[in-house]
Protein backbone atom coordinates (compact mmCIF):
# COMPACT_ATOMS: atom_id res chain seq x y z
CA UNK A 1 0.00 0.00 0.00
CA UNK A 2 2.06 2.97 -1.25
CA UNK A 3 -0.21 5.61 0.17
CA UNK A 4 -0.12 9.25 -0.87
CA UNK A 5 -2.60 10.89 1.48
CA UNK A 6 -2.70 14.11 -0.55
CA UNK A 7 -3.87 12.21 -3.62
CA UNK A 8 -6.46 10.37 -1.54
CA UNK A 9 -7.69 13.71 -0.16
CA UNK A 10 -7.96 15.22 -3.65
CA UNK A 11 -9.73 12.17 -5.03
CA UNK A 12 -12.33 12.06 -2.26
CA UNK A 13 -12.95 15.83 -2.45
CA UNK A 14 -13.60 15.50 -6.20
CA UNK A 15 -15.94 12.58 -5.59
CA UNK A 16 -17.93 14.44 -2.94
CA UNK A 17 -18.37 17.42 -5.28
CA UNK A 18 -19.30 15.24 -8.25
CA UNK A 19 -21.86 13.26 -6.25
CA UNK A 20 -23.29 16.05 -4.12
CA UNK A 21 -26.89 15.07 -4.86
CA UNK A 22 -26.27 11.49 -3.75
CA UNK A 23 -24.59 12.54 -0.51
CA UNK A 24 -27.41 15.01 0.18
CA UNK A 25 -29.93 12.21 -0.38
CA UNK A 26 -28.07 9.89 2.01
CA UNK A 27 -27.79 12.62 4.63
CA UNK A 28 -31.51 13.34 4.53
CA UNK A 29 -32.75 9.76 4.35
CA UNK A 30 -30.68 7.71 6.80
CA UNK A 31 -33.47 7.57 9.37
CA UNK A 32 -36.09 6.79 6.73
CA UNK A 33 -33.97 3.99 5.30
CA UNK A 34 -33.53 2.45 8.73
CA UNK A 35 -37.27 2.60 9.39
CA UNK A 36 -37.95 0.98 6.01
CA UNK A 37 -35.40 -1.69 6.82
CA UNK A 38 -37.03 -2.23 10.21
CA UNK A 39 -40.50 -2.94 8.86
CA UNK A 40 -39.07 -5.08 6.05
CA UNK A 41 -37.13 -7.13 8.59
CA UNK A 42 -40.11 -7.57 10.89
CA UNK A 43 -42.22 -8.72 7.93
CA UNK A 44 -39.49 -11.27 7.14
CA UNK A 45 -39.49 -12.40 10.76
CA UNK A 46 -43.17 -13.26 10.62
CA UNK A 47 -42.68 -15.10 7.33
CA UNK A 48 -39.93 -17.08 9.03
CA UNK A 49 -42.44 -17.94 11.77
CA UNK A 50 -44.79 -19.46 9.19
CA UNK A 51 -47.13 -16.52 8.66
CA UNK A 52 -48.42 -15.55 5.24
CA UNK A 53 -47.43 -11.89 4.93
CA UNK A 54 -48.80 -9.36 2.47
CA UNK A 55 -48.60 -5.61 2.11
CA UNK A 56 -51.80 -3.59 2.47
CA UNK A 57 -51.77 -0.24 0.72
CA UNK A 58 -54.29 2.52 1.32
CA UNK A 59 -57.05 2.89 -1.22
CA UNK A 60 -55.91 4.73 -4.33
CA UNK A 61 -52.20 4.23 -3.68
CA UNK A 62 -50.57 1.52 -5.80
CA UNK A 63 -47.35 1.73 -3.85
CA UNK A 64 -46.12 1.04 -0.32
CA UNK A 65 -46.74 4.35 1.41
CA UNK A 66 -44.29 4.72 4.30
CA UNK A 67 -45.31 6.61 7.41
CA UNK A 68 -42.15 8.37 8.50
CA UNK A 69 -43.35 10.56 11.36
CA UNK A 70 -45.96 10.91 14.08
CA UNK A 71 -48.15 12.93 11.74
CA UNK A 72 -50.98 11.41 9.76
CA UNK A 73 -53.55 8.68 10.34
CA UNK A 74 -52.63 5.00 9.96
CA UNK A 75 -55.31 4.34 7.33
CA UNK A 76 -53.53 6.68 4.93
CA UNK A 77 -50.35 4.59 4.99
CA UNK A 78 -49.35 1.04 4.14
CA UNK A 79 -48.91 -1.77 6.61
CA UNK A 80 -48.34 -5.52 6.57
CA UNK A 81 -50.88 -8.17 7.46
CA UNK A 82 -49.53 -11.52 8.65
CA UNK A 83 -51.83 -14.53 8.92
CA UNK A 84 -51.24 -17.95 10.43
CA UNK A 85 -54.15 -20.32 10.98
CA UNK A 86 -56.73 -18.21 12.82
CA UNK A 87 -54.36 -15.51 13.97
CA UNK A 88 -53.90 -12.20 12.18
CA UNK A 89 -51.16 -9.74 13.09
CA UNK A 90 -50.57 -6.31 11.61
CA UNK A 91 -47.28 -4.42 11.31
CA UNK A 92 -47.52 -0.60 11.19
CA UNK A 93 -44.97 2.19 10.97
CA UNK A 94 -44.84 5.14 13.39
CA UNK A 95 -47.86 3.99 15.34
CA UNK A 96 -49.38 5.91 18.25
CA UNK A 97 -50.06 3.65 21.21
CA UNK A 98 -51.47 4.19 24.69
CA UNK A 99 -49.17 3.89 27.69
CA UNK A 100 -49.49 0.77 29.82
CA UNK A 101 -49.78 2.95 32.95
CA UNK A 102 -51.67 6.14 32.18
CA UNK A 103 -53.33 8.18 29.45
CA UNK A 104 -50.02 9.03 27.84
CA UNK A 105 -49.52 8.32 24.13
CA UNK A 106 -46.26 7.17 22.58
CA UNK A 107 -45.30 6.76 18.93
CA UNK A 108 -43.37 3.57 18.25
CA UNK A 109 -41.30 3.22 15.09
CA UNK A 110 -42.88 -0.15 14.28
CA UNK A 111 -46.01 -1.45 16.03
CA UNK A 112 -47.01 -5.12 15.91
CA UNK A 113 -50.73 -5.30 16.64
CA UNK A 114 -53.64 -7.69 16.77
CA UNK A 115 -55.55 -7.90 13.51
CA UNK A 116 -58.38 -5.52 12.70
CA UNK A 117 -57.86 -3.14 15.63
CA UNK A 118 -56.71 -0.17 13.59
CA UNK A 119 -59.31 1.54 11.40
CA UNK A 120 -58.78 1.20 7.68
CA UNK A 121 -60.68 4.37 6.85
CA UNK A 122 -61.63 7.64 8.46
CA UNK A 123 -64.87 7.49 10.43
CA UNK A 124 -67.12 9.84 12.35
CA UNK A 125 -65.42 8.94 15.63
CA UNK A 126 -61.87 10.23 15.93
CA UNK A 127 -59.07 7.70 16.42
CA UNK A 128 -56.45 8.88 18.87
CA UNK A 129 -54.20 5.87 19.30
CA UNK A 130 -54.05 2.11 19.66
CA UNK A 131 -55.13 0.68 22.98
CA UNK A 132 -52.22 -0.84 24.87
CA UNK A 133 -53.95 -4.22 25.09
CA UNK A 134 -54.07 -4.42 21.30
CA UNK A 135 -50.32 -3.90 20.94
CA UNK A 136 -48.48 -7.22 20.76
CA UNK A 137 -45.00 -5.73 20.57
CA UNK A 138 -42.97 -2.96 18.97
CA UNK A 139 -39.64 -1.99 17.48
CA UNK A 140 -37.54 1.14 17.92
CA UNK A 141 -34.92 2.01 15.31
CA UNK A 142 -31.78 4.03 16.11
CA UNK A 143 -28.93 4.90 13.73
CA UNK A 144 -26.50 4.78 16.65
CA UNK A 145 -24.01 2.42 18.20
CA UNK A 146 -25.51 0.55 21.13
CA UNK A 147 -24.04 2.10 24.25
CA UNK A 148 -25.10 1.46 27.83
CA UNK A 149 -27.30 4.55 28.27
CA UNK A 150 -29.15 3.77 25.03
CA UNK A 151 -30.00 0.37 26.51
CA UNK A 152 -31.20 2.01 29.72
CA UNK A 153 -33.35 4.43 27.71
CA UNK A 154 -34.88 1.54 25.75
CA UNK A 155 -35.67 -0.30 29.01
CA UNK A 156 -37.49 2.87 30.05
CA UNK A 157 -39.52 2.85 26.83
CA UNK A 158 -40.42 -0.81 27.36
CA UNK A 159 -41.42 -0.02 30.95
CA UNK A 160 -43.91 2.57 29.71
CA UNK A 161 -45.36 0.52 26.87
CA UNK A 162 -44.90 -3.22 27.50
CA UNK A 163 -43.77 -3.52 31.15
CA UNK A 164 -44.49 -7.25 31.39
CA UNK A 165 -41.50 -7.79 29.07
CA UNK A 166 -39.32 -6.65 31.97
CA UNK A 167 -40.57 -9.38 34.31
CA UNK A 168 -41.06 -12.43 32.12
CA UNK A 169 -40.11 -15.90 33.19
CA UNK A 170 -39.37 -18.02 30.12
CA UNK A 171 -41.96 -20.71 29.49
CA UNK A 172 -40.74 -24.11 30.52
CA UNK A 173 -43.11 -26.03 28.30
CA UNK A 174 -44.61 -25.56 24.86
CA UNK A 175 -43.22 -23.86 21.77
CA UNK A 176 -41.69 -20.39 22.07
CA UNK A 177 -43.88 -17.46 21.03
CA UNK A 178 -43.58 -16.51 17.37
CA UNK A 179 -43.91 -12.85 18.28
CA UNK A 180 -40.96 -10.54 18.55
CA UNK A 181 -40.41 -9.13 22.02
CA UNK A 182 -39.91 -5.34 22.20
CA UNK A 183 -36.90 -4.83 19.95
CA UNK A 184 -34.20 -2.18 19.65
CA UNK A 185 -32.93 -2.03 16.06
CA UNK A 186 -29.58 -0.29 15.62
CA UNK A 187 -27.18 0.18 12.73
CA UNK A 188 -24.20 0.33 15.07
CA UNK A 189 -22.34 -2.29 17.04
CA UNK A 190 -22.08 -2.72 20.82
CA UNK A 191 -19.82 -0.19 22.48
CA UNK A 192 -18.46 0.02 25.99
CA UNK A 193 -19.75 -2.85 28.07
CA UNK A 194 -23.15 -2.83 26.37
CA UNK A 195 -22.82 -6.48 25.35
CA UNK A 196 -22.27 -7.48 29.00
CA UNK A 197 -25.47 -5.65 29.93
CA UNK A 198 -27.50 -7.37 27.20
CA UNK A 199 -26.17 -10.81 28.14
CA UNK A 200 -27.56 -10.30 31.66
CA UNK A 201 -31.13 -9.68 30.51
CA UNK A 202 -32.31 -13.33 30.48
CA UNK A 203 -31.05 -13.81 34.05
CA UNK A 204 -33.01 -10.72 35.05
CA UNK A 205 -36.18 -12.03 33.31
CA UNK A 206 -35.99 -9.13 30.86
CA UNK A 207 -37.53 -10.33 27.60
CA UNK A 208 -36.44 -7.83 24.96
CA UNK A 209 -34.44 -8.09 21.78
CA UNK A 210 -31.39 -6.03 20.87
CA UNK A 211 -30.64 -6.18 17.13
CA UNK A 212 -27.26 -4.52 16.65
CA UNK A 213 -25.48 -4.17 13.29
CA UNK A 214 -28.93 -4.39 11.75
CA UNK A 215 -27.78 -3.61 8.21
CA UNK A 216 -25.57 -6.72 8.31
CA UNK A 217 -28.44 -8.81 9.68
CA UNK A 218 -30.75 -7.70 6.89
CA UNK A 219 -28.06 -8.45 4.31
CA UNK A 220 -27.81 -11.98 5.69
CA UNK A 221 -31.57 -12.46 5.29
CA UNK A 222 -31.34 -11.22 1.70
CA UNK A 223 -28.50 -13.68 1.06
CA UNK A 224 -30.55 -16.48 2.67
CA UNK A 225 -27.92 -16.92 5.41
CA UNK A 226 -30.56 -16.43 8.06
CA UNK A 227 -34.36 -16.54 8.00
CA UNK A 228 -35.00 -13.56 10.25
CA UNK A 229 -32.84 -10.58 11.24
CA UNK A 230 -33.95 -11.24 14.83
CA UNK A 231 -33.21 -14.96 15.13
CA UNK A 232 -29.72 -16.39 15.33
CA UNK A 233 -28.71 -18.21 12.11
Amino acid sequence: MGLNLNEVKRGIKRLITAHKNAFDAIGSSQTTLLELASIAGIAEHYKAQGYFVRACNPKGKPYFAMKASTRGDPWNFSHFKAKKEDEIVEIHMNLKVRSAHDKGIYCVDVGITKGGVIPTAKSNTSWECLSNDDLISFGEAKKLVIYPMLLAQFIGIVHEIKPLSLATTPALFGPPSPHLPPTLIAIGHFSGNARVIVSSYPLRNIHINIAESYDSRLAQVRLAKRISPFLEP
Partner: protein
Amino acid sequence: MPDNLQPSIARGISDLKETVYALPFPLREQVVGFARSIGELTPTLAIEADVAVTPEIAHQFVFLAGVKKLHDLVHSSFWTLDNSVSLLANSEVTSVRMGGRDFSKSSEAYQLFRSLLTALDRELAKFEIRDLLNSSQIELLQAISRNGS
Protein backbone atom coordinates in the same frame (compact mmCIF):
# COMPACT_ATOMS: atom_id res chain seq x y z
CA MET B 1 -2.41 9.43 25.26
CA PRO B 2 1.34 9.59 24.53
CA ASP B 3 2.36 13.23 23.99
CA ASN B 4 4.09 12.53 20.68
CA LEU B 5 0.89 11.18 19.10
CA GLN B 6 -1.55 13.95 19.99
CA PRO B 7 -0.37 16.48 17.32
CA SER B 8 -0.37 13.81 14.59
CA ILE B 9 -3.86 12.64 15.50
CA ALA B 10 -5.03 16.26 15.44
CA ARG B 11 -3.43 16.66 12.00
CA GLY B 12 -5.22 13.55 10.75
CA ILE B 13 -8.56 14.95 11.96
CA SER B 14 -7.78 18.31 10.36
CA ASP B 15 -6.92 16.68 7.03
CA LEU B 16 -10.11 14.66 7.19
CA LYS B 17 -12.23 17.73 7.98
CA GLU B 18 -10.70 19.55 5.00
CA THR B 19 -11.40 16.53 2.77
CA VAL B 20 -15.06 16.07 3.74
CA TYR B 21 -16.05 19.71 4.33
CA ALA B 22 -18.53 19.59 1.39
CA LEU B 23 -20.47 16.66 2.84
CA PRO B 24 -23.92 17.48 4.29
CA PHE B 25 -23.66 18.24 7.99
CA PRO B 26 -25.10 14.95 9.33
CA LEU B 27 -22.65 12.84 7.33
CA ARG B 28 -19.70 15.15 8.02
CA GLU B 29 -20.36 14.95 11.76
CA GLN B 30 -20.57 11.15 11.66
CA VAL B 31 -17.32 10.82 9.70
CA VAL B 32 -15.29 13.30 11.75
CA GLY B 33 -16.84 12.19 15.05
CA PHE B 34 -15.94 8.59 14.32
CA ALA B 35 -12.36 9.54 13.42
CA ARG B 36 -12.06 11.50 16.68
CA SER B 37 -13.20 8.47 18.68
CA ILE B 38 -10.68 6.30 16.83
CA GLY B 39 -8.00 8.89 17.58
CA GLU B 40 -8.73 8.56 21.30
CA LEU B 41 -8.61 4.78 21.05
CA THR B 42 -5.36 4.67 19.05
CA PRO B 43 -3.07 3.77 21.99
CA THR B 44 -5.43 0.95 23.05
CA LEU B 45 -5.80 -0.31 19.49
CA ALA B 46 -2.01 -0.23 19.08
CA ILE B 47 -1.62 -2.62 22.00
CA GLU B 48 -4.26 -4.98 20.59
CA ALA B 49 -2.67 -4.81 17.13
CA ASP B 50 0.82 -5.26 18.58
CA VAL B 51 1.98 -2.22 16.62
CA ALA B 52 4.44 0.50 17.61
CA VAL B 53 2.55 3.61 16.53
CA THR B 54 4.70 6.44 15.23
CA PRO B 55 3.30 9.95 14.69
CA GLU B 56 3.04 9.32 10.92
CA ILE B 57 1.20 6.03 11.45
CA ALA B 58 -1.21 7.75 13.84
CA HIS B 59 -1.81 10.53 11.30
CA GLN B 60 -2.60 8.09 8.48
CA PHE B 61 -4.65 5.79 10.72
CA VAL B 62 -7.01 8.49 11.97
CA PHE B 63 -7.46 9.92 8.47
CA LEU B 64 -8.18 6.52 6.95
CA ALA B 65 -10.53 5.62 9.81
CA GLY B 66 -12.61 8.59 8.70
CA VAL B 67 -12.46 7.48 5.07
CA LYS B 68 -13.52 4.01 6.21
CA LYS B 69 -16.52 5.53 8.02
CA LEU B 70 -17.49 7.40 4.85
CA HIS B 71 -17.16 4.17 2.88
CA ASP B 72 -19.29 2.30 5.45
CA LEU B 73 -21.99 5.00 5.40
CA VAL B 74 -22.30 4.87 1.62
CA HIS B 75 -22.30 1.06 1.52
CA SER B 76 -24.71 0.74 4.40
CA SER B 77 -27.17 3.26 2.89
CA PHE B 78 -27.24 1.59 -0.51
CA TRP B 79 -27.39 -1.98 0.74
CA THR B 80 -30.02 -1.17 3.40
CA LEU B 81 -32.20 0.30 0.65
CA ASP B 82 -31.46 -2.49 -1.80
CA ASN B 83 -32.03 -5.26 0.74
CA SER B 84 -35.23 -3.70 2.07
CA VAL B 85 -36.75 -3.14 -1.37
CA SER B 86 -35.75 -6.63 -2.51
CA LEU B 87 -37.27 -8.28 0.55
CA LEU B 88 -40.44 -6.21 0.22
CA ALA B 89 -40.72 -7.44 -3.37
CA ASN B 90 -41.20 -10.92 -1.88
CA SER B 91 -44.42 -9.54 -0.38
CA GLU B 92 -45.38 -8.13 -3.80
CA VAL B 93 -44.29 -4.60 -2.96
CA THR B 94 -42.73 -3.20 -6.10
CA SER B 95 -42.84 0.49 -5.31
CA VAL B 96 -41.98 2.30 -2.07
CA ARG B 97 -42.64 5.97 -1.34
CA MET B 98 -42.28 8.30 1.61
CA GLY B 99 -44.12 11.55 0.98
CA GLY B 100 -43.01 12.66 -2.45
CA ARG B 101 -39.85 10.56 -2.40
CA ASP B 102 -39.64 7.30 -4.30
CA PHE B 103 -37.29 4.64 -2.96
CA SER B 104 -38.09 1.91 -5.48
CA LYS B 105 -35.35 0.26 -7.52
CA SER B 106 -36.37 2.37 -10.51
CA SER B 107 -36.17 5.60 -8.48
CA GLU B 108 -33.68 8.43 -8.80
CA ALA B 109 -32.63 7.92 -5.17
CA TYR B 110 -31.76 4.27 -5.78
CA GLN B 111 -29.80 5.08 -8.93
CA LEU B 112 -27.96 7.95 -7.17
CA PHE B 113 -26.93 5.66 -4.31
CA ARG B 114 -25.77 2.93 -6.67
CA SER B 115 -23.76 5.34 -8.84
CA LEU B 116 -22.12 6.82 -5.76
CA LEU B 117 -21.23 3.39 -4.42
CA THR B 118 -19.66 2.37 -7.74
CA ALA B 119 -17.72 5.64 -8.03
CA LEU B 120 -16.45 5.50 -4.44
CA ASP B 121 -15.29 1.91 -4.76
CA ARG B 122 -13.53 2.77 -8.01
CA GLU B 123 -11.79 5.81 -6.48
CA LEU B 124 -10.64 3.88 -3.43
CA ALA B 125 -9.44 0.99 -5.61
CA LYS B 126 -7.19 3.47 -7.48
CA PHE B 127 -5.36 4.08 -4.20
CA GLU B 128 -5.35 0.36 -3.38
CA ILE B 129 -7.24 0.93 -0.13
CA ARG B 130 -10.73 -0.30 -1.03
CA ASP B 131 -10.20 -3.84 0.26
CA LEU B 132 -8.39 -2.50 3.30
CA LEU B 133 -11.42 -0.42 4.26
CA ASN B 134 -13.44 -3.62 4.55
CA SER B 135 -11.13 -4.81 7.32
CA SER B 136 -11.29 -4.13 11.05
CA GLN B 137 -9.62 -1.13 12.71
CA ILE B 138 -6.94 -3.47 14.08
CA GLU B 139 -6.17 -4.85 10.61
CA LEU B 140 -6.10 -1.31 9.16
CA LEU B 141 -3.59 -0.21 11.78
CA GLN B 142 -1.43 -3.26 11.14
CA ALA B 143 -1.49 -2.65 7.38
CA ILE B 144 -0.47 1.00 7.78
CA SER B 145 2.34 -0.07 10.11
CA ARG B 146 3.59 -2.66 7.62
CA ASN B 147 3.53 -0.09 4.84
CA GLY B 148 5.53 2.36 6.91
CA SER B 149 8.22 -0.11 8.02
